[in-house]
């Protein structure tokens, strides 16, 4: 009996060990976090470099036309689904509406659900717009790390969903925004961007930009208890380069939140993030567009050892257009040089030296750009159009404030050397008004009217800047939810109108298309489970930003897994 039991244990251990190899069960190690996405998908953007590239090739350009729906599951989203799920050890993890779901990779069934309740006095400027949206979770060790809208870090056991700790950062200078009618000061930070797991830290983007303009920080939290290890300020502090590009006192409400999940380079030990627009949108309190406002509408590199800022590059000096530089800065090796490649709202793909932040070039990637004629060799805009007058007529600006690309993620395929963009032709009539203040919250002092062109999904040669292919959604304004590309020579995206698409990564030839009947606002991902590759697309939300008529879609919420 004893003997038998022991044998059983050994057998079970051996089995577990084997399963561990096959399924990479157990804790997520730094080694696992450092790899490109393959069987597992452990970062919102697939890897630290933000590539959204998978080494899997079971589904490929030759067989993609035979894709089938493996399963579908609704998580009952009540607002846009913007997160790409993670996959680890047979489970998919996705945040939505201040909940986290773990779904079985077999059939999408809910294995556990974690729910967080927002405070009673939650509210304020633009807050209904942000509430319930999340752009991803992180995983490290045994925990899924979730940042709720009220900036609390929840460490959830990935197998059970039980919280090991919930850390609140209010006493660290990060209040949440409060209902106007209940608060004298309603300014606050709202977290919709997910954390990034790196060795020894969980990096939290603290963003308050469009809820009153409190300044942005990247916070490093200790993975075992959430304690703050350092805070990196996006807007330069006294003594830092660029501090004097803001008038006295304007730093305090200058916005510049780290905007969208950043990328990480393990050699340089730097975290790279785009930052939000400068606040208020009307620039009169921060130099009237004449001062650079470094740190806002910028790309910022943070040394992850101590949180010091290595460099800041401002892509839209004095940002009068609400042109934040969203999108994860891609870290790409170009001719042996570690390069930051970021397509952004401006209509250009910016290239910077990853180590120094030195501007290398900016390639225009959409047809209609009127706000500048280009960038000079120092990375400064050439011939920016004049600003509208406060209270006067609005002016035509292209791209519009939603940008040539927005925060819907791009992808990079090292095999094709192409970067894939969920782009759109767009414009706006844009004007300034006096800046209104409610409950101590400064409002935009600006407004806009859309002038849409079509969604255009495209591939651009990262080295030359040349467009290689495009897929125009005629009469359908908006952005695809995000891009995925793989070693199987495919690029996958879902148009905002809901067309799930698999294209030949090299040629752009459409290999498979299924109209899913609802808007996609998140990028697809892929994983291998029990020997089979799956591609998952989460759908959910309102098509467009307040514009469903041309797309003829109503609100939808469903997660769909494809396989062959």
């Amino acid at each position: 009996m004893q003997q038998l039991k022991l044998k059983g244990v050994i057998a079970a251990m051996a089995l577990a060990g084997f399963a561990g190899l096959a399924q990479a069960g157990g804790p997520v190690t730094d080694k696992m976090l450092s790899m490109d996405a393959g069987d597992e998908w452990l970062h919102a953007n697939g890897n630290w470099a933000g590539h959204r590239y998978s080494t899997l090739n079971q589904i490929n350009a030759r067989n993609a036309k035979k894709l089938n729906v493996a399963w579908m599951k609704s998580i009952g989203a009540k607002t846009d689904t913007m997160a790409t799920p993670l996959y680890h050890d047979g489970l998919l993890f996705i945040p939505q509406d201040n909940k986290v779901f773990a779904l079985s990779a077999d059939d999408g069934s809910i294995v556990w659900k974690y729910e967080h309740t927002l405070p009673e006095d939650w509210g304020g400027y633009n807050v209904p717009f942000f509430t319930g949206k999340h752009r991803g979770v992180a995983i490290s060790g045994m925990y899924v790390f979730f940042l709720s809208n009220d900036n609390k870090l929840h460490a959830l056991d990935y197998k059970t969903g039980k919280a090991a700790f919930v850390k609140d950062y209010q006493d660290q200078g990060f209040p949440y925004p409060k209902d106007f009618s209940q608060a004298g000061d309603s300014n606050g930070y709202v977290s919709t961007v997910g954390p990034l797991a790196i060795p020894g830290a969980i990096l939290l983007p603290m963003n308050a930009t469009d809820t009153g303009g409190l300044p942005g920080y990247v916070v490093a939290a200790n993975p075992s208890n959430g304690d703050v290890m350092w805070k990196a300020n996006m807007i330069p502090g006294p003594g830092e380069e660029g501090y004097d590009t803001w008038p006295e006192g304007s730093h305090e409400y200058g916005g510049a939140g780290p905007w969208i999940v950043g990328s990480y380079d393990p050699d340089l030990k730097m975290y790279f993030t785009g930052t939000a627009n400068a606040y208020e949108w009307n620039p009169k309190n921060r130099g009237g567009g004449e001062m650079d406002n470094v740190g806002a509408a910028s790309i910022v590199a943070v040394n992850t050892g101590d949180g010091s800022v290595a460099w800041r590059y401002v892509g839209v000096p004095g940002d009068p257009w609400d042109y934040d530089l969203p999108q994860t800065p891609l870290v790409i090796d170009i001719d042996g040089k570690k390069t930051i490649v970021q397509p952004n709202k401006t209509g250009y793909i910016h290239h910077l030296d990853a180590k120094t932040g030195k501007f290398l070039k900016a390639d225009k990637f959409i047809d209609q750009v009127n706000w500048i004629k280009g960038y000079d060799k120092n990375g400064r805009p050439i011939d920016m159009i004049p600003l509208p007058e406060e209270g006067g007529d609005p002016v035509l600006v292209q791209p519009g404030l939603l940008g040539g690309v927005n925060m819907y993620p791009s992808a990079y395929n090292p095999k094709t050397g192409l970067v894939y963009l969920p782009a759109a032709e767009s414009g706006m009539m844009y004007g300034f008004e006096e800046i209104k203040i409610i409950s101590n919250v400064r409002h935009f002092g600006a407004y806009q009217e859309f002038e849409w062109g079509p969604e255009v999904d495209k591939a651009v040669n990262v080295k030359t800047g040349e467009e290689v292919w495009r897929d125009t959604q005629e009469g359908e304004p908006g952005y695809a939810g995000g891009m995925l590309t793989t070693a199987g020579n495919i690029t996958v995206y879902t148009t905002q109108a809901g067309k799930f698409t698999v294209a030949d990564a090299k040629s752009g030839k459409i290999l498979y298309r299924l109209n899913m009947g609802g808007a996609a606002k998140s990028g697809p991902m892929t994983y291998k489970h029990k020997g089979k590759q799956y591609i998952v697309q989460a759908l959910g939300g309102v098509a467009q930003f307040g514009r469903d008529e041309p797309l003829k879609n109503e609100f939808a919420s469903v997660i769909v897994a494809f396989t062959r």
Partner: protein
Amino acid sequence: MQITKWLLAMFCAAGLWMALVPAGMAEEYEVPEANPYSGDKKAIRSGRSWYRNVCSPCHGGRADGQGERGTGADLRKQKLGYKGFVEVVLDGRKVQGRIQFMPGWRNVLSMKDILEITAYVETLALPEANWE
């Protein structure tokens, strides 16, 4: 000693009272039979500035429902009548099954601000709109 304690207690109670009763008094939000600012140029100018700061993110600069912050209604077509419009602005409206909603502005904007915004939106009316 007793008295200072009592004063302190009163002071705290008053503070609490102030916190609970928001800025304006309830009667400030009585909806007048007709909008006194309708057609008033100066009021419309001021209402436009408020509209563009606080309403346009959801309803769009043209009030056509195309805000960059989500799906507000097309206010040019509004069918609620003048009073119905003001009541929605005061108390907001939840949207079934959605997080995004129309926030209420009672105790946030003054009645004057709201009536000025109303006077501005009225100037954008499409033929089918009802401002009676």
